[in-house]
């Protein structure tokens, strides 16, 4: 179970990664001109239904999550954004009365199949939650958690990879002298970046972010948005957000959810400039939701 072999370390940037200054949202970064169909899919969802007990929360969701792109999921409260995201790593399995049906294709297999190895699935699809949730251990042990869980590592390589994950999460400079302090002694924004470091240390392919900025202040939010833009080079990111400006700032594709259905999905520029559905337009112009 834990005996998974270590991936070739070549894909890891060495320590000393320079954090570039804050990225301005450039027009050419936009995915509007990309050929959507030709981009590789990381995850493709077909006919996803979700139930809380007898109550159905998602209805036939279809969506394609593109590799190395940021896909934002927006919509009013209770529309099923988080529920949708929580199906990708089967975290809902913690609760007996929740179940999903349909197809979530990831790396050639259906995530929802009973054959899926949840431990490996969750290694490959990491998750960041709304509330920062550092484990009750030191900063170092927090980041090392996934590494120790999934890989056999020597002490030196472990520290190297912890440092690397903290650097790539743009928090190294703030915590390098606090590695042995408890993780929850950090500020809220730092805790959230620590959680991101913890998730990326385990070498996932996908990062699911469930409103990662809703519990932290604007400055910390800006840092995390910046981080998302940097991380998409290596990871596929799905971001649930209440904040439409945030979706506009960081995402390439946007899906608009309403009452458990995906009303519209397309390049972020299109969704925000010329939405085709009336509901989408009303939502993004603030007329409801």
């Amino acid at each position, binding site marked *: *179970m834990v005996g998974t072999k270590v991936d070739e370390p070549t894909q890891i940037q060495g320590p000393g990664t320079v954090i570039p200054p804050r990225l301005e949202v450039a027009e050419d970064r936009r995915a509007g001109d990309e050929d959507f169909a030709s981009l590789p899919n990381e995850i493709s969802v077909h006919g996803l239904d979700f139930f809380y007990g007898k109550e159905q929360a998602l209805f036939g969701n279809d969506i394609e999550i593109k590799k190395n792109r940021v896909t934002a999921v927006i919509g009013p409260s209770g529309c099923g954004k988080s529920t949708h995201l929580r199906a990708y*790593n089967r*975290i809902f399995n*913690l609760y*007996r009365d929740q179940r999903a049906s349909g197809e979530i294709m990831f790396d050639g297999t259906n995530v929802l199949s009973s054959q899926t190895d*949840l*431990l*490996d*699935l*969750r*290694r490959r699809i*990491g*998750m960041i*939650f*709304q*509330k920062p*949730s550092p*484990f*009750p*251990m030191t900063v170092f042990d927090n980041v090392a*958690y*996934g590494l120790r*869980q*999934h890989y056999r590592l020597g002490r030196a390589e472990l520290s190297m990879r912890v440092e690397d994950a903290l650097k790539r999460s743009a928090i190294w400079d703030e915590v390098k002298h606090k590695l042995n302090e*408890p993780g*929850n*002694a950090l500020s809220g924004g730092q805790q959230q970046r620590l*959680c991101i470091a*913890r*998730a990326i240390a*385990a070498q996932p392919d996908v990062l699911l972010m469930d409103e990662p900025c809703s519990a932290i202040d604007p400055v910390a939010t800006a840092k995390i948005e910046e981080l998302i833009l940097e991380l998409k080079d290596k990871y596929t990111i799905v971001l649930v957000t209440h904040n439409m400006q945030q979706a506009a700032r960081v995402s390439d594709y946007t899906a608009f959810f309403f009452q458990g259905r995906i009303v519209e999905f397309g390049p972020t520029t299109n969704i925000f400039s010329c939405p085709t559905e009336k509901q989408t337009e009303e939502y993004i112009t603030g007329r*409801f939701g």
Partner: protein
Amino acid sequence: MSAVAPLPEQAPLRHRSVASRKAADLVVKVLSWIGALFGMSVMALVLYEVVIRGIKAWNWAFFTQPTPQDFMSTSGGMANAIVGTLIITAGAALIAIPIGFLAGVYLAEYGRNGRTATGIRMVANVVMGVPSIIVGVFAFAILVKPLQHYSGFAGSVALAFLMLPVMARTTEDILNLVPNELRESGLAMGAPRWRVTLRVVCKAARGGLITGATLAVVRVAGETAPLLFTALSSPYWITGLFGPGGYFGGPVSNLTKTIFDFAGQPYPHLQALAWGGALFIIVFVLGLNILVRLLFQRGKEW
């Protein structure tokens, strides 16, 4: 979305009397003060009496000599009873804490609202309400009667039986306080459930769990009834594990039963020993409480 309809024309609002509400507030405040004061003063009186009378019995002999075999002699102490109580209580803790902890983990993490868990929870609540003498009789029936002799171990089992539901329910309650986000975060890292439970959830609740276990020990440390038919009492030192004087082999001296025996004797010397023993139990329980609180206060931030 829709504009709020204006209130229809009506008579102006009449104010309720502020004075009467203030008076009601004062009455409730005074009553709760009186209640608190009454409760506290009764407890203080008990404590005062035990300390004043008990401290007089505390001397070198009290902590080094075994209980007197000859009631007429004024020598002797409570040392064998103190040792016996510590051993019997520790034995009970060794049995009940691990089982109770695991049961609590099951209730909070796995069973939750399932039928099995609901059943176990109900049984635990019922057992918590069972008079301790019944528990003593139960231990007598399963361990003393079949083996044809009293034993300290039987006493431990009786106490463990009392501790078990307390331990299970406090463990459950404390684990339920751990936010679900922490469980989800652990599972989302690809860690198996048992690992998240032990290394993340229980670690987060560590301080509370240890306090809970201590409270469970404290709950039984002063019990007398379960020991009446099990550990019984003895004027001798415990001699080891087996044999007629041993933990498994025969009656073991203990504080509560000895206090019970001596307090009813007409000899002032024995009565004094009983007061001293009572004080010892109070100090032991209080000390354990304070110690755990001091040690694990910091644990909360983890």
